[in-house]
């Protein structure tokens, strides 16, 4: 990445205009850059972040402050019971409890290979037909080795609940000949505001290339891209709009702009389903 590209990405990153893959690429490049380059990029980002001149001049209503504080407090309180369970589990394991909260994004902790592999096994164990019995056995096992605690910390307590919740709907995608080992699924739950897309075992993407999770039209052409991602061996875990799932779309993982080959596809619903 040239310094010019780095500055361009810094501007876009500061305004939240990069997708996850590009934001991660920028973050990696930023951390690898020399200290004076980092300082320059940081200054540029701070300048861009101060975009008040592009914003309308208006005042937030005075009551909004109290509503914001109440919303944060409510979110914290709703997470508290699950956090207490996690603390007890950790205490049983003889370790210090750490704050847990709902999180939709991947953290550094998650990126450790061991946890990635373990969670992939957990998630894709859930994609088999054994369903509920397996989930209950899995939960028991998880409680035993405190992996549940790690999953709660990474994905949020609601995700752990979803592993064994009868209301969780799991739609498994079918791999094509292009990548027969690839596995992916979309999970939805009535209480979630978004659906979750998981994928693993895809062919690794080349630098600068991505896969797209897209809605296809009748001719198999992508008409709406729900998310893009690169794959380097770690479990893909992306939130996607739930309203798309309601309409039972023809959903597929396809190559990026240069190649539209099908990697995985969601089978059409059975008649009468």
């Amino acid at each position, binding site marked *: 990445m040239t310094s010019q590209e780095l500055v361009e990405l810094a501007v876009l990153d500061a305004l*939240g205009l990069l997708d996850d893959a590009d934001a991660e690429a920028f973050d990696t490049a930023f951390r690898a850059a020399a200290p004076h380059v980092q300082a320059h990029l940081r200054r540029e980002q701070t300048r*861009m972040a101060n975009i008040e001149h592009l914003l309308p001049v208006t*005042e937030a209503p005075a009551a909004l402050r109290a509503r914001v504080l109440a*919303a*944060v407090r409510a979110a914290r309180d709703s997470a508290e019971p699950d956090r207490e369970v996690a603390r007890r589990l950790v205490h049983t394991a003889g370790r210090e409890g750490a704050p847990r909260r709902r999180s939709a994004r991947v953290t550094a902790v998650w990126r450790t290979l061991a946890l990635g592999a373990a969670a992939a096994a957990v998630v894709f164990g859930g994609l088999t037909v054994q369903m509920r019995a397996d989930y209950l056995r899995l939960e028991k096992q998880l409680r035993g080795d405190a992996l549940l605690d790690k999953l709660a910390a990474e994905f949020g307590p609601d995700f752990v609940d979803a592993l064994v919740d009868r209301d969780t709907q799991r739609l498994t995608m079918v791999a094509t000949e292009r990548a027969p080992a690839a596995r992916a699924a979309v999970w939805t739950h009535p209480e979630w505001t978004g659906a979750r897309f998981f994928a693993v075992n895809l062919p690794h993407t080349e630098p600068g290339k991505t896969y797209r999770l897209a809605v296809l039209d009748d001719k198999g052409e992508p008409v709406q891209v729900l998310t893009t991602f690169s794959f380097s061996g770690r479990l893909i875990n992306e939130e996607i*709009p739930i309203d798309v799932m309601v309409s039972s779309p023809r959903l597929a993982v396809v190559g990026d702009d240069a190649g539209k080959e099908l990697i995985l596809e969601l089978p059409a619903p059975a008649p009468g389903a």
Partner: protein
Amino acid sequence: MPNRTQSGDDDLALMQRIAGDEDAAVAELYDRFGSLVFRMAYQTMPTRAEAEDAVQEVFVRLWQTADRYDPKRAALVTWVMLISRRHLVDRLRRSRARVKASGLEEAQVSQGPDATEGVDSRMDRQERFEALLDRISTLPELQRTVVTRAYLGGQTLRQIGEELDTPLGTIKSALSRALVRLRERSEEELAR
């Protein structure tokens, strides 16, 4: 005017206090950045009520991610902007209330009146928006198209690249240059 020149250490301490569930720290964060976040939300969301809801969600998100803040990576204002902008764009996409991005005229139409705001406020909002569109309209064509679709319309850069049949790198460069140019023009106007 919010004080955003505090040191990285102070910023880190504040976010650590927020991660430690300290109510006063959340209040301090709101006092520093609440106005900025609200103005961003007001610009992005179709109605004032939705902007207010979005601000609440942004601050919940800031609380959720407080333990990930790294002052070496970004100033706190940048972090707040990043989290806010991403959330607003996500919200916009989900509500399917995006600004029609095929032309500036359509963008103006979609910023229609909000029954919850007064006439003066609405006029001011419209004037400000038109001033922004004026600035955008002076940009070269590609920059104008990209900034309208991405910054105002909430489209991803990849979507824009696909729809314009233009390489992603070109889209990124055009948008970055457009935003820098808009910032510079605004700074020039303020200096007059």
